[in-house]
């Protein structure tokens, strides 16, 4: 029986990496829980409320999207719409070419990973440099991020030091402080030389058109302080109704993601810089990206679009902790990715239809989710979809059910099996030479055979 792809991958994860991912995720998860419980009277209500607000936005996007477009335009930003990932990439390229720009600094944005922006721009002769330390290391290694918030949770300092040496960023030194200093020194001149700073947005207020961008390192701020043009790539689901709601989401985001009260830099951007401000972008573009999101909106899994990419569900997930991010073969790992990736795959759903099976349905993901997404339910809906669409990948690892089907659908066979089952009481199970079975029976005894009891009970009940 072929194993699931994710199991095959998990079997190859080296023990030290598995331990690092396990420890990193577990620590963050525990701190996050402690912090929410210590600081708020009713943190669970907060999550539910945030979920209700996002659900409201999703179900009213037809109103909010034109509203935010009008606000942003009035604030002096240019709004673009991209139906597909390719169109979003092409739009970025056009904006750059119109300015004669060849250099971009990029803050971390998941949607740019999703559409493969950096690779696309490089093919067109544009330097598109990742500036988040983790993403920078991913980029020089031609690797992929393995966690939403901690992209290089799968790498150790020795590997990073080797990459730096190879890239000419100093002789081998695996001290994390030295690694960070070297990146600082290298990147600060890149910001100054770049024409365009690209960011995502964690939230966008429909009321004011404010984009909210958070980072700890300050790379997004630098990307908006040195370059003269700002491009923001924003998924159409990122809206919140009012500025006031931004406060609610800010209270939840950093605590859920990294167990901080607030990220170090929390930036509200509603347009190009003031004329009196010497630094920052004179030109601001906001690209709203669909790329299959409207299909998700039309599906019975639309709740997944509430996601604020905090990573809490990854940190708590017993499967993610064992297999780590690359096992999900997509930009979005963990329980979130198991739902979102197959949906965003559009016509290629079948290629990722196995991901929703990578879950024990324990429910921990929903319990920690700051927008209370019913992830276990969505996983079940996608399993059902995979079955209906005969996705073969999803079937791997499933025990053949043929024999069971005969047994369960033919009363005569069923009755015979029940009678034969009594033999179990007399078999010396401990002597069967299968190690797993032996280990199991060495400490446990099977209960006595009770096959047929229910039928007897039902019969008697009907008589009386």
């Amino acid at each position, binding site marked *: 029986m072929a194993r699931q792809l994710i199991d095959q991958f998990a079997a190859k994860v080296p023990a030290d990496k598995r331990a690092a991912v396990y420890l990193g995720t577990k620590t963050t998860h525990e701190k996050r829980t402690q912090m929410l419980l210590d600081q708020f009277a009713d943190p669970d209500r907060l999550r539910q409320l945030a979920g209700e607000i996002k*659900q409201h936005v999703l179900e009213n996007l037809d109103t909010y999207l034109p509203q935010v477009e009008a606000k942003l335009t009035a604030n002096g930003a240019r709004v673009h719409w991209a139906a597909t990932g390719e169109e979003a990439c092409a739009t970025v390229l056009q904006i750059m070419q119109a300015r004669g720009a060849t250099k971009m600094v990029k803050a971390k944005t998941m949607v740019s990973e999703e559409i493969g922006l950096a690779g696309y721009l490089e093919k067109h002769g544009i330097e598109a440099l990742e500036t988040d330390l983790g993403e920078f290391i991913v980029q020089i290694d031609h690797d992929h991020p393995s966690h939403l918030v901690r992209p290089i949770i799968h790498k150790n300092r020795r590997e990073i030091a080797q990459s730096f040496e190879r890239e000419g960023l100093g002789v081998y030194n695996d001290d994390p402080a030295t690694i960070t200093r070297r990146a600082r020194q290298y990147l600060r001149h890149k910001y100054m030389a770049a024409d365009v700073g690209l960011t995502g947005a964690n939230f966008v207020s429909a009321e004011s058109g404010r984009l909210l961008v958070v980072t700890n390192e300050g790379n997004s701020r630098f990307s908006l302080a040195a370059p003269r043009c700002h491009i923001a790539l924003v998924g159409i689901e990122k809206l919140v109704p009012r500025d006031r709601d931004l406060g*609610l989401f800010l209270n939840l985001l950093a605590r859920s993601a990294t167990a901080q009260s607030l990220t170090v830099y929390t930036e509200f951007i509603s347009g190009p810089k003031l004329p009196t401000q010497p*630094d920052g972008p004179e030109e601001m573009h906001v690209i709203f990206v669909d790329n299959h999101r409207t299909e998700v909106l039309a599906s019975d899994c639309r709740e997944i679009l509430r996601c604020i990419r905090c990573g809490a569900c990854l940190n708590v997930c017993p499967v993610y902790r064992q297999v780590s991010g690359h096992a999900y073969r997509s930009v979005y790992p963990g329980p979130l990715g198991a739902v979102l990736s197959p949906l965003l795959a559009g016509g290629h759903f079948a290629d990722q239809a196995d991901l929703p099976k990578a879950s024990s349905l324990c429910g921990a993901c929903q319990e920690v989710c700051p927008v209370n997404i019913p992830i276990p339910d969505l996983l079940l809906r996608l399993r059902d979809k995979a079955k209906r669409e005969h996705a073969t990948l999803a079937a791997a690892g499933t025990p053949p059910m043929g024999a069971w089907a005969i047994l369960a659908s033919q009363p005569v066979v069923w009755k015979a099996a029940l009678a034969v089952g009594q033999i179990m009481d007399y078999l010396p199970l401990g002597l069967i030479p299968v190690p797993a079975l032996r280990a199991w029976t060495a400490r446990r005894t099977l209960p006595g055979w009770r096959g047929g009891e229910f039928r007897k009970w039902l019969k008697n009940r009907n008589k009386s």
Partner: protein
Amino acid sequence: MSDSREQILNRVRAALAPLLQRAPLPEWERELVDLRGTRNSTDLWALFAERLKAVNGTPLTTVAELVALLESNGWRHGYCDPALWPRLREAFSTAFTVETDFDRRRIDDYQFGITAATGAIAETGTVILSDRDTSRRLGALAPWVHIATVRRDQIFADLTAAVAALPVDPNVIWVTGPSKTADVEGILIEGVHGPGRQITLLMAG
């Protein structure tokens, strides 16, 4: 591009059309997001100072302390907001080189930058900078040390109050402690792209 706009909005409308009813917008009480033990605080500077220290920032109440700190670390070359400099200059000895214009071509020359904050948030130890009040985005960002000046009457108790008072300004940034990362093996390192030292100086009136 406008084709895509119509296409996306049409798809959104089509996706939502089958919904019998749409989820309402819930109202919520600000008490829900009150942090335990924050709002009863009367001395907002004291609370701010405590929380700033908790994120490895440095609260100071006199210019003399600031000058001593800079001196003891050998940070003698910096940038200062031209509007602030007349009030600070007499505390700085001639050993310092302080420029009131920031030269983009020499960002590595500045060891510290002094700029005015628009406000602060006590419960999180956050300073608020904006395009209107902060002389230079780069002056507050590129040097190793950033000093933000703030007045008592500019301090908000909590995040909710600060959001409610967001100024009309294209760019507002909240800064909570020094720039930091834990990307390498989860080890905390400060001073990644932004300042490694974040100081707030309390100014009178």
